[in-house]
């Protein structure tokens, strides 16, 4: 079994009561009580006004966390490879297209071209590359409840093979009605990491991951703080909360993420 190693040189978070890394770090460290609020991500200043107008809440969430993590790394934005991960993608856009396609009383209703191109799973990643003029490779994963371990593993493999920094951006947003009854997420949540090749100096911590085809032996991946556990269980991207808490606390940690009927072991060393 191969262990993949990288250096975390940027981190970000956005979710209810977790509005950006500087504001969230004391909460994640357990120094300030967690007080969830409704926290829609802001319109991304990094996009031109024209492109910004076309983005909805899901793309804004992704761009917010991508931008914050990339900025913290201090690396040139147009040099970062990227891995985007989202279970639902833009369910708001997809749901609205499905509704448009079946509007009662109208046999034929054209769907909006902008909505259509925003419906692709890599829409947020496309906006990111446009905003940053970044022509580096990008991939976009969709792995339902396992999107966090899958995206982390893919990003670690990319860093390992190419020995270049990778921006990892994982986000998920609740579905609109009536899809929400079939796929329930409790709140929007996203995070970003910038992973640099192992052995580099600086940054926040070293991270190691290893896949194993057996389930986790324990529930070590739940957040330290009981107040964050509902969020962690209620959004696939928030499965990363344990890692974010570890980084906020500057401690060493080893936890096992459930990945289908296997697991991804994650070790963090400050």
């Amino acid at each position, binding site marked *: 079994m191969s262990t993949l190693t990288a250096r975390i040189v940027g981190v970000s978070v956005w979710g209810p009561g977790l509005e950006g890394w500087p504001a969230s770090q004391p909460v994640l460290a357990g120094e300030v009580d967690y007080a969830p609020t409704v926290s829609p991500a802001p319109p991304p200043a990094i996009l031109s006004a024209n492109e910004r107008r076309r983005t909805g809440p899901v793309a804004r969430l992704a761009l917010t966390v991508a931008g914050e993590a990339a900025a913290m790394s201090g690396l040139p934005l147009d040099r970062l490879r990227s891995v985007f991960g989202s279970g639902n993608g833009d369910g708001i856009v997809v749901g609205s297209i499905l509704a448009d*396609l079946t509007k009662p009383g109208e046999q034929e209703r054209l769907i909006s071209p902008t909505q259509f191109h925003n419906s692709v799973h890599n829409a947020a*990643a496309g906006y990111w590359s*446009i905003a940053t003029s970044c022509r580096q490779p990008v991939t976009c994963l969709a792995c339902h409840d396992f999107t966090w371990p899958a995206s982390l593993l893919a990003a670690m493999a990319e860093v390992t093979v190419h020995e270049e920094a990778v921006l990892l951006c994982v986000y998920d947003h609740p579905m609109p009605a009536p899809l929400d009854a079939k796929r329930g997420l409790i709140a929007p949540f996203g995070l970003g990491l910038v992973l640099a090749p192992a052995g580099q100096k600086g940054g926040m911590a070293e991270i190691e991951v290893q896949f194993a085809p057996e389930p986790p032996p324990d529930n070590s991946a739940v957040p330290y703080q009981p107040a964050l556990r509902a969020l962690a269980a209620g959004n696939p991207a928030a499965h990363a909360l344990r890692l974010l808490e570890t980084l906020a606390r500057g401690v060493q940690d080893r936890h096992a993420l459930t990945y289908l009927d296997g697991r991804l072991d994650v070790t963090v060393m400050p």
Partner: protein
Amino acid sequence: MRPLVLTACTIISAIGLGAAAHVQALRARSGGLRPNDFEPTAGGWIGRIAGVEAYRLPASLSAFDCRNNRLTDMALHTDGFADAVRAARDVYGAGRMAVVMGTSTSGITAGEEAYRQRDTASGALPAWFEYDLTQDPFSLGRYVRTVLGLRGPAMVVSTACASSARAFIEAAQLIHSGVCDAAVVGGADSLCRMTLHGFAALELISPTPCQPCDAGRSGISIGEAAGFALLERLDAPRRNDATGARLALLGMGAASDAHHMSAPHPEGAGAVRAMQQALRSAGMTPAEVDWVKLHGTGTRANDAMEDLAVFEVFGAAVPCSSIKGWTGHTLGTCGILEAVIAGQCMAEGFLVGCLGVDAVDPDFRADVVVANRERPIRVALSNSFGFGGINCSLVLGHVA
């Protein structure tokens, strides 16, 4: 990069079920497009696979039932693919084999049907609708992994029309980083109302069968397909006394346009970069490539951009052609479908030209091939591009 071998392949599309049926159709220059009888109001022509409506998934997997998973199941049980994976599983162990799939819309036809059957008072979706196992993109990854009995990591890549091409890159990285020993790579995309009406809204559907590289081309014809390959290291032990040359992934490149969400960069900036990186990764010069298998969708913008990009990288020396005149644009599946077709052409020693071309666009400078050419092909480069400005190129060849 270190080459990886494709030790088993399967494809289904509008021109046939299985690799041999594809070769037969390509040699006979017999295309698979027909007037849109799937969603006639969206217009145009489509590449529709026969027999999907009557096809049934195994009873134990019926919760996965949707058009996309039917295509998937059909392809898994074509060309002896599932058996080949089983033989590899006996060697590597299920936990050492990954599943990396590409799809743009997965089983969204199930969602479309569910929306049609919404409760008129509450708007609620019907009880039968299994979102997680159909419409959700990961449905494809779960389905393939379940049918093949694999226990390694599974990923679904969704990068629009470059999905299954990009899946090759993810799979190669998992193998090269040691996460797994082998990977089932590929994808499935099926006809659906969202895509047909979406491209119609963008005014990109050709009223005639699509004509990639033609002077009068006027858009795409949408097709459906599924295809899979078993990707292993070059030193993988041969099974079943297999001998002879093997199809191999020699190089891969990816790049973003950073230009526009649905229109390609006019000079093909991302496409040039992806092709150059793929050549670099293969350790090859442009002159060593015998065929550029174009993305070649048939839109004005894509084909003009791609001609510029191919000319910039290869000049006019390397023949190039598109396969989409036969199968239609199979969206997220075109990467795997066209890679396997390219492999078949290499094995058979012919280069397949474009179908449906009356006159090649006189502005094009690359060497666009229309009539099939009998000639050995040692190395092919296959392009797949998608919305969001994503570009992927794969270099394929035969190794001993």
